[in-house]
């Protein structure tokens, strides 16, 4: 937790393609930005859902993968030196006199003149298995991540899943857990081969146990788990003792705290005007998939356009005394200077 407040012109919520391009458009009009994202890397859905999938409707690029587009955008915005804050989610938005203060779940506080919400479909959050009563165990016995592995020292841990998260947590927690069982629906793992090798070696040496099956019920009291019912591949069920369960079933998008920021919402989207892409609150913009307006299309190219127009209005808030003269990057030496090409 840091007491220091970061002061900047703009805070962009979301490091997907639109949040990244917003850095570019703001940068061209001399607005410095900090970007916050829940994921551990830029790209948003492009990085999480489509890193290797082709996108065919980015103007000028016949085909580009989600990861390639992300990499190209990161390269394109480099001259503007945006600062990134990954692995965290903006929790609260406060209004100060002519400024906004946002605080993340890691305790970072930023103050800005304009806030740009480019949060796409919301923040990626771990999927909650549809097990009756699981909510009552969350935070006590059921975790989707833990900040410190020490928290689970000496506990009987059950990890469910076969991807990278499940395997990484298996390897990280094995040294501290009293016992560790990995449960997965099949004997194949989509995790990185190196992690699978390490995990299998731990099974071989008897340091962890691997079982096949799927959890169907949780048993315990007052949020304290004691066992789970597992359905094995043959359909028969068995009881698996566990004090701690960590299920890994991928991520899903949830609007999250944005809903509590006091902005007008329409079906979990933020209505904006189509001139400035400003929300119901002056100085707070919403661009990309998270906004809505008549005729809205959830396309990356639409978000790029929205970012450009947003930046024009943002300039008025950040530099109220300066008149913005429209310029082209092709011919303007001052823009080219900002881009570092002149």
């Amino acid at each position, binding site marked *: 937790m840091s007491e220091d407040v970061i002061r900047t012109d703009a805070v962009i919520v979301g490091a997907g393609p639109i949040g990244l391009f917003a850095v570019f458009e703001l940068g061209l009009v001399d607005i410095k930005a900090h970007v916050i994202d829940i994921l551990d890397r830029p790209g948003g859905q492009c990085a999480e859902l*489509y890193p290797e*999938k082709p996108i065919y409707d980015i103007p000028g690029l016949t085909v580009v993968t989600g990861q390639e587009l992300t990499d190209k955008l990161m390269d394109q915005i480099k001259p503007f030196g945006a600062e990134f804050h990954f692995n965290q989610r903006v929790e609260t938005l406060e209004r100060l006199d002519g400024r906004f203060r946002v605080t993340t779940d890691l305790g970072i506080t930023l103050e800005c003149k304009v806030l740009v919400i480019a949060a796409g479909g919301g923040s990626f959050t771990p*999927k909650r*298995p*549809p097990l009756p009563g699981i909510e009552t165990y969350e935070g006590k016995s059921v975790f989707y991540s833990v900040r410190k592995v020490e928290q689970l020292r000496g506990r009987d841990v059950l990890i469910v899943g076969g991807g990278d998260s499940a395997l990484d947590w298996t390897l990280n927690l094995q040294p501290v857990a009293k016992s560790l069982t990995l449960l*997965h629906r099949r004997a194949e793992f*989509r995790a990185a081969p190196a992690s699978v090798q390490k995990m299998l070696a731990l099974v071989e040496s008897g340091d962890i146990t691997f079982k096949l099956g799927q959890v169907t019920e949780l048993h315990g009291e007052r949020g304290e788990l004691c066992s789970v019912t597992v359905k094995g591949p043959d359909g028969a069920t068995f009881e698996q003792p566990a004090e701690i369960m960590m299920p890994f079933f*991928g991520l*899903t998008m949830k609007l999250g705290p944005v809903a509590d920021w006091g902005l007008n919402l329409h079906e979990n989207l933020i209505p904006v005007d189509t001139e400035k892409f400003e929300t119901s609150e002056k100085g707070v913009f919403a661009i990309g998939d998270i906004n809505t307006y008549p005729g809205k299309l959830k396309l990356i190219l639409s978000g790029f356009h929205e970012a450009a127009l947003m930046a024009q209005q943002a300039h008025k808030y950040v530099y109220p005394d300066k008149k913005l003269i429209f310029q082209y990057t092709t011919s303007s030496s001052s823009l080219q200077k900002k881009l570092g090409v002149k």
Partner: protein
Amino acid sequence: MTVMEAAVKHSIPGIAAECGGACACATCHVYVDEAWREATGNPEQMEEDMLDFAFDVRSESRLSCQIKVTDALDGLVVRIPEKQT
């Protein structure tokens, strides 16, 4: 056209299809009726991997974004799990 696309196009509830058909989210999970198992075939490796992110996976589980609708599937019956996400 895939089974997922057909479902979404006709506003059939229970198919979330968060990733829009990229085989990247497992929120279009369906159970293929026994009589249609052979006609729909088996999941490929990528789909099988993604099924790890679905719940209550059974031998008849498929991701509906990976089942292409053909004439041979006229009358196809699939069931939707209790929860997708």
